[in-house]
């Protein structure tokens, strides 16, 4: 049975819950893009419309919608898919609990948006003591408590579902059998559970006292609350990043199978084992967000830097395995060392999302090199280099891969063919290229010192001349192209839902998403080409590090 048939067998009630999460996620993403349009206008120096008051409100709303709610909703949908659609029609443990979790997340979204548009210009960080200056801040904290509760409930539901897969709970063999049987992506979701619980725990630890303190019901002065908040926040915020990182790779494993029909030539335990690395290496590396803080001892920063290098490793190896899956499959039909690439289904929008998402992930990952080392972080901390890497990472990689799976999700669940093939084919490439323009010019702006969160970067005419040009390219061109690519996606998905051609046989997809036909002529199990991206990545991060030291050595003011 193909994976499409397996996904199609999921129960309609579970599909409804997934669809609710998916649609709420998409609406959050539409909101994030709409506010991004305002940010593009404000942040592009050529327009001359910089406005601090409007900018910080829009930035707060944009980040909360995009980074918190789009991910919270869509990743909950993926969690349910991992527990049902990838389990051959298996059911979710409790549908009622799933809907309760959805209600909490939606309540969080509404509460946060009321907070933002009532004037809580606190950014998504909402750090005390700054946040205390804004009367609507408690609504930000309350919304975060709701979304954390929603995440906790849906994760508990997922975990309870996993427990139902083992009849003899005391038998190690039964557990081993279940873990070896499940799909790699479902295993990835299980590995994410301890990280999700850590995030939820940290969120309660942060926002319960912050919420109560903002009404004066408890005192937050005596215990160095702002300092502790900043530290705990970064632990939570750091771990949050790795949920999309893991989910995106889990999605990539599904997409490569759906688009090319490829299977791993390596034992699945290798891929599963690599997912276990995340809960081990991610939590201790939170320190890389605090490399320019005076509150952390240098020794801790150096240990943190060394550990931080490990976070690339599982992702790099997953990329090797996934690329290798395609290589072995394609070359089994006789294609040569590089010739196989030309025969991949480049016109399938979900495949384009997969491949461009992976390329963008690799490039954005390389851009993090200087930032996560104590020795070089002071070159870029707080500059525009930070959004210049995070946007390709979360939009050009994670969101693009999610878009790829949404193409299949909508088509399979609603039994409709993709509307607007040509637009759908262009969209993933445009989104990826747009974010790479944003990343390249934005990183150069960061190296040139452009501050990360300033509406007006003129500083009374004293700013370096290069700043305006770089920001015009990064935000004006890269940002605008990103908005266009986003609109194209929303139009295709919206139109597919309501106007896509009905599929006669539900398990057979339309031409755009059809699985690639490959006729094997030989057994081929080697993956040399798949090694190349890893080699390039390592050389790039070494080069970036050496380059950063080179720049720092030539500073006209030496720091040390």
């Amino acid at each position: 049975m193909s994976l499409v048939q397996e996904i199609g067998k999921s129960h309609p009630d579970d599909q409804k819950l997934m669809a609710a999460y998916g649609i709420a996620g998409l609406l959050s993403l539409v909101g994030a893009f709409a506010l991004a349009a305002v940010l593009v206008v404000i942040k592009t120096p050529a327009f001359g419309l910089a406005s601090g008051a409007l900018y910080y409100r829009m930035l707060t709303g944009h980040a909360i919608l995009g980074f918190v709610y789009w991910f919270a909703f869509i990743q909950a949908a993926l969690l349910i898919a991992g527990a049902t659609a990838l389990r051959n029609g298996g059911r979710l443990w409790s549908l009622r609990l799933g809907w309760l979790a959805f209600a909490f997340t939606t309540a969080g979204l509404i509460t946060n948006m009321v907070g933002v548009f009532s004037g809580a210009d606190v950014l998504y960080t909402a750090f005390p003591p700054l946040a205390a200056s804004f009367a609507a801040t408690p609504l930000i904290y309350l919304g975060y408590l709701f979304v954390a509760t929603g995440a906790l409930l849906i994760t508990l539901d997922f975990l309870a579902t996993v427990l139902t897969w083992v009849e003899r709970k005391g038998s190690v063999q039964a557990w081993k059998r279940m873990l070896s049987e499940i799909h790699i992506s479902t295993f990835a979701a299980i590995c994410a559970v301890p990280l999700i619980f850590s995030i939820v725990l940290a969120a309660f630890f942060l926002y319960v006292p912050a919420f109560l303190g903002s009404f004066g019901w408890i005192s937050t002065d005596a215990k160095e609350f702002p300092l502790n908040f900043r530290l705990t926040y970064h632990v939570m915020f750091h771990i949050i990043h790795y949920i999309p990182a893991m989910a995106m790779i889990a999605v990539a494993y599904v997409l490569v199978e759906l688009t090319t029909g490829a299977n791993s030539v390596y034992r699945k335990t290798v891929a599963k084992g690599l997912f276990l690395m995340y809960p081990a290496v991610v939590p201790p590396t939170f320190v890389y967000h605090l490399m320019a803080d005076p509150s952390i001892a240098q020794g801790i920063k150096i240990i943190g830097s060394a550990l931080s290098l490990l976070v690339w490793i599982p992702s790099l190896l997953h990329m090797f395995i996934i690329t290798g899956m395609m290589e072995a499959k394609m070359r089994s039909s006789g294609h040569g060392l590089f010739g196989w690439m030309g025969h991949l289904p480049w016109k399938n929008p979900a495949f384009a999302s997969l491949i461009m998402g992976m390329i963008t992930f690799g490039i954005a990952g390389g851009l993090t090199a200087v930032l996560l080392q104590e020795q070089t972080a002071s070159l870029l901390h707080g500059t525009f280099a930070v959004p210049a890497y995070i946007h390709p990472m979360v939009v050009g990689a994670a969101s693009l891969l999610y878009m790829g799976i949404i193409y299949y999700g909508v088509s399979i669940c609603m039994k409709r063919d993709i509307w607007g093939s040509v637009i759908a084919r262009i969209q993933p490439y445009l989104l990826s290229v747009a974010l790479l323009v944003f990343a390249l010019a934005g990183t150069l702006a960061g190296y040139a010192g452009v501050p990360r969160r300033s509406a007006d970067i003129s500083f009374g005419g004293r700013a370096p001349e290069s700043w305006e040009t770089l920001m015009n390219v990064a935000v004006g061109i890269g940002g605008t192209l990103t908005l266009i690519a986003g609109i194209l996606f929303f139009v295709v998905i919206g139109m597919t839902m309501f106007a896509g051609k009905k599929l006669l046989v539900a398990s057979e997809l339309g031409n755009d998403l059809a699985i690639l036909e490959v006729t094997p002529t030989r057994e081929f199990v080697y993956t040399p080409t798949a090694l190349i991206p890893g080699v390039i990545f390592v050389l790039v991060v070494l080069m970036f590090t050496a380059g950063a030291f080179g720049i720092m050595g030539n500073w006209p003011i030496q720091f040390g």
Partner: protein
Amino acid sequence: MKSSNSYLVAAFVIAFSVLLIIPMWSAYGVMFPKEGGGHAHGAGEALAASEFEENTARFIEEHRLPDGSVRVEHGKPIYVMAMQYTYRPNTLRLAAGEQYDLRMLSTDMVHNFSIQMGNTSYNAVVMPKIVTAVKLKPTKPGTYLVVCNEYCGIGHDYMYFSIIVEEAKGEANHETMSKEEHEKTSKGQQERASTITKDHGHGEHK
């Protein structure tokens, strides 16, 4: 189907070779704290804002020039206080070739010391209660813009000051930044900050 695991082994070797960055740290001589004082933004001492404010006020009083800028003698610590939406002192004069100890503290929010050096910058967080201690040695005369790059409120964009690096000792030039230019910096900035404070009702600072 039997796969060739040698490629998998090669992939592991490639992935783990990102750790080659670690010997690069020692190759560039920055892996461990430098002798006598630690790295630029290493852990600072905890200090009450009132004590730091007193030190800063005394420091400004002792070193202020008629144009309002502050010229620092080599060997004496520099105190800079950050607050919504300004730095105190507003203009610092240093001499090229000398080494200085810069100490910074915020009296309210978390701010940043982001010094612009042409097409590159050095960035350090400045927070309340913990002093950011930076050793710096200017080598090239010029006027350097310092901005806050940590969001600190609606007037964040207007939070900046100048460090003027003058020729080495004996060749000092008081006029590196004209009097008019200095007045433009401090007055313009103060006006903008006070407008923002009035408009948004936060930031009651000394």
